């Protein structure tokens, strides 16, 4: 780089630029915090949904599945599984409950988690809640 562009100019761009964009990022975050309640389906968050999230996390479902497109790419997207399963929490529960302990020969398998009825209801309600978040039209279709 030429001599007209000095190191101290470069340093100033670094300090000034970072400071400015940190502040801008914080401002956008602040605004997001006030906008999110319009889209996040928080009305649906109940004790049961909170338990559902705990079941989701403590069984590491994200280690195989995506949720709203984030996670692992080994198994189907679950952000919209409530819609895909005909808006039936019973169907979701039935699926989770019926996983064979030894897996399905030759097929990618989901573990049998031996969840209690309460936990099954909770995880299904959690998936229903996530299904209701306004994701700007993602995923493109029902297959996720």
């Amino acid at each position: 780089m030429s001599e007209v562009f000095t190191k101290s100019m470069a340093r100033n761009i670094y300090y000034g630029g970072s400071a400015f964009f940190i502040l801008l990022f914080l401002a956008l975050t602040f605004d997001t915090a006030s906008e999110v309640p319009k889209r996040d389906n928080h009305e649906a968050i109940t004790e049961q949904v909170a338990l559902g999230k705990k079941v989701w996390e403590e069984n590491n479902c994200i280690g195989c599945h995506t949720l709203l497109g984030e996670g692992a790419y080994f198994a189907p997207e679950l952000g919209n599984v409530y819609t895909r399963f005909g808006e039936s929490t019973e169907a979701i529960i039935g699926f989770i409950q019926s996983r064979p302990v030894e897996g399905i020969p030759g097929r990618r398998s989901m573990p049998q988690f031996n969840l209690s009825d309460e936990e099954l209801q909770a995880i299904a309600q959690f998936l229903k809640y996530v299904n209701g978040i306004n994701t700007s039209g993602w995923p493109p279709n029902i297959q996720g």
Partner: protein
Amino acid sequence: MKYQSQAVAKPYFIAAIGLFIGQILFGLIMGMQYVAGDFLFPEIPFNVARMVHTNLLIVWLLFGFMGAAYFLVPEESERELHSPLLAKILFWVFLVAGALTVLGYLLVPYARLAELTMNDLLPTMGREFLEQPTITKIGIVIVALGFVYNIGVTILAGRKTVVSLVLLTGLVGLAVLFLFSFYNPVNVVNDKFYWWWVVHLWVEGVWELILASILAFVLIKVTGVDREVIEKWMYVIIAMALISGLIGTGHHYFWIGAPEYWQWWGSIFSALEPIPFFMMTVFAFNMVNRRRREHPNKAAVLWALGTAVMAFLGAGVWGFLHTLAPVNYYTHGSQLTAAHGHMAFYGAYVMIVLTIISYSMPILRGQKAGSPRAQKVEIWSFWLMTLSMVFITLFLTGAGIQQILLQRYTDNPLPFMVVQDKIEMFYWMREGAGVVFLVGLILYVSAFFVKGGEREEITDSSGMASATSS
């Protein structure tokens, strides 16, 4: 070695390489499970293998960064490390905590691990990359604090160079942003929003500062180019990294329930993110072309250039490929994401750690550079690992494009599992490339044990050309 205390870097590097081998073995297990679904089921379910693979990656990269800091900070600061003892203690704390955590993943069901570690008290587990039990996370914070303190005191008491100050900024940022891993609201939108403050602001923010400073350090040493020139480049690169990367976080806020204006902010700013990576490439080649000495460690020079090129390809090119909102609508959470994740992590962070190891290990072992024969083996391993990673990326890109065409960008979308069956071929080829990667890695390790050929003992203390800082 100019300062005795630099020697503490050595166990860090050895641990890093050891865990790297573990990471790749679990990558191969998952690669197998992609094509033979019941492989090792139910003993090692896919999610367990994935946690081990990604957590080992993060942990060994952190070992690498810490080793790099312990090696370069005394040299930059022109004084001994504040406390080599603290560095040794933290090494064992981190290694034991890491090993116990991985054993926990492997030996008990994850839900049981959550129970054993009392996740209820402060639930932080079960989120991608942040699967560690809360107690492990607290351990990481303690290790990070002790480490930053040790490095910070050394830097502030000694000669302050741009390299060491930028490194310190990056390391402090790394530690501070990790604190967001303790924030885990029930509201999924907020959970995801701040989750990215750890993940994105690490790899596309503060880690880039660490990357730039290690790269600058090695280039100063191996090329002998004037420090002033290198520091000016560094400032511009990290300025661009933060200017683009902070708001660039928005490329993860398109479809998680955040306001729609993020589609604009995220697309535009993340589209600028390749710039610092491109500049890094130009910078590295420029410095090597202007070199004032022929450093005997050819392998280290190759790793440094390779880092710049592969980081640009993996982060810059493959990142740009899916970063604009209208494209990301179709690619989000597909195999294309995995393709990019692999090449970006390898090109930027795996390779920079291997660069500093390549440069410093011979010095830590009392030589200036490895013997020509050892270097030859190392250079072979460079090409095997790097080319197989290129192929892993290409195969996953092929898989991703097919997946999108069959499942998303179509009027007759097929179910996920049906599509996965149809693209099995790509996964077989990825597994093949993965095996070659492992061969490259074995060769890499063996290069440390190659004897013979003449060695260049350290005669001068070299490395510094007109070292001044402002």
